[in-house]
């Protein structure tokens, strides 16, 4: 029996997430692992926007910020459970993406880049300036999700880092599964068609504006959920989560691993998340190395790491 590429991707992902802890010498690795999954989730959303639909956004951290601050603010001000707060954040992100996306997505290339960048900066500016609500640049505390206590009551006792490793890993697998399903759905085909040529897609009856907006809204929800997970896991959040550099990191992760492939993008997230941890020893070289990696991969492996390597292996096999 031959597995579909979708099943293969999900199997690899689930297997790596499940088996990796065997090799973890300390709880610190669970922490890094769950950070990778949180970033991987946001990047999976960007695969839909950049890889499928061929649009760019330099402002997606704005949605991550909305998701993160929803988890911090809604429990305090609306009395919502943190999980519901995350859902509220996702809905809010979707609504804002819908409103902002309509005019923004008419733009192309660099104009789209600057418009989305402007949006992201506005969000992070509101978060750091409305200090009486958000605590300003110092950030604010986020309540406990409470799921770990529930698990403990039914006999599953996980440490905090183990729980977040498992939980964000699970959310990532679900996110990847949804993204892969989307790829093979009529919507996914429409997105790929308009990526190839908007005019051609329009000629065969694809509502280009509508589908671009769909991709934008979906990717915003991914970013928002990723922001919520980050906030709940750290139990603390600062406006940096919505900052320009976070947007850039997200896009770089996606493109580094290969924006056309879910697995590749998650690999990109894994590399860029672990790189600073590995480089803490050479802290003064961190920026130098990060910049160098970004340039080298984009120059020599234009399709991103995973697709480029896969092509090379396939080329050798033939």
């Amino acid at each position, binding site marked *: 029996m031959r597995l579909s590429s979708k099943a293969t991707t999900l199997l690899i992902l689930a297997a790596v997430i499940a088996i990796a802890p065997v090799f973890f010498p300390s709880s610190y690795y669970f922490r890094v692992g769950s950070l990778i999954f949180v970033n991987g989730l946001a990047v999976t959303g960007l695969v839909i926007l950049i890889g499928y639909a061929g649009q760019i956004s330099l402002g997606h951290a704005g949605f991550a910020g909305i998701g993160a601050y929803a988890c911090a603010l809604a429990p305090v001000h609306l009395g919502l459970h943190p999980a519901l707060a995350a859902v509220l954040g996702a809905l809010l992100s979707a609504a804002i993406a819908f409103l902002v996306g309509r005019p923004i997505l008419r733009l192309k290339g660099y104009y789209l880049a*600057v418009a989305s960048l402007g949006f992201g900066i506005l969000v992070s500016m509101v978060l750091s300036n409305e200090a009486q609500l958000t605590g300003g640049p110092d950030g604010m505390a986020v309540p406990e999700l409470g799921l770990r206590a529930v698990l403990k009551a039914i006999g599953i006792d996980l440490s905090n880092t183990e729980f977040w490793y498992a939980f964000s890993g699970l959310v990532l697998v679900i996110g990847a599964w949804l993204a892969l399903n989307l790829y093979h759905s009529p919507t996914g085909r429409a997105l790929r068609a308009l990526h190839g040529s908007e005019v051609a897609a329009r000629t065969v009856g694809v509502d280009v504006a509508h589908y671009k907006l769909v991709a934008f809204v979906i990717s915003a929800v991914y970013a928002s959920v990723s922001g919520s997970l980050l906030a709940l896991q750290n139990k603390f959040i600062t406006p940096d989560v919505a900052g*320009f550099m976070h947007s850039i990191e997200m896009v770089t992760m996606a*493109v580094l691993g290969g924006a056309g492939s879910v697995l590749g993008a998650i690999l990109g997230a894994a590399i860029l998340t672990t790189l600073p941890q590995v480089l803490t020893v050479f802290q003064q070289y961190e920026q130098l190395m990060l910049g160098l990696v970004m340039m080298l991969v984009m120059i020599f492996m234009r399709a991103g790491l995973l697709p480029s390597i896969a092509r090379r292996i396939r080329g050798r096999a033939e």
Partner: protein
Amino acid sequence: MPELLQFLLSGITVGAVYALVALGFTIIYNASDVVNFAQGEFVMLGGMITFFAHAAGLPLPLAALIAIIVTAGIGVALNKLAIEPARGAPVVSLIIITIGASIFIRGATQLVFDKQIHRFPAFSGDQPILIGGATILPQSLWVIAGALAVFVCLWLFFTRTLIGRAVLATANNRVAAQLVGINTNYVMTLSFAMSAAIGALAGVLVTPITLTSYDVGLALALKGFAAAMLGGMGNPKGALVGGLLLGILEAMTAGYISSQYKDAAAFVVILAVLFAMPQGLFGRKSTDRV
């Protein structure tokens, strides 16, 4: 009234810097269709190198000259090592390459120099000049004059010189330019050198007012990019007007509305302009080729 004049003067000073960054963007964009996010690092390098050369005992004009020449060399290296090998790559990749370059330059600067904030003396002293109740620093006049001089020189270069027209021809159609005997590689090198030199000049002019450190580049790049967008990408007149408008707008927002949201005002206006006029104020309407 003096209040308004004061905001206007400080807005024009800041705007002149944005205009210089935007002009640098425009030159590279015209020659290569690349938006160079490392443009702000050129401004930073101009200020930092001048400071350290000056601190090493060189007279200020010589230090500034060295800074501009070294930065131009770094611009050429950026083109040769990072932009040219990636020719034909999609916009997303080019954005990541130039942002990568900007992070790399920032990292290298903090290693070679330091992480401190620096300033060197103003060219003509720090005694403010009174104009109708408002004051302006002599250094601000240097900045404004610098922006205008660069704009006029560029305008003459692009309309009156053969090599300037060769740059425009290369921008228009690279292959056709090569066919009529233009050395397009030379044109690219020249464009990056000019753009980096203009950025460094902006850094030299503005550091006595705003100070400099290894991490000032990114904010300047974003503002310059926004200014270039506001005026219409690839148009020197647009870059100048866009930069000045953005500076004035920021100063007015800071003065009359909220200094915390002065950066927000810039982006709100840019979003509004892009929605109403997707090609910017002076941009030409483009049509898609199928």
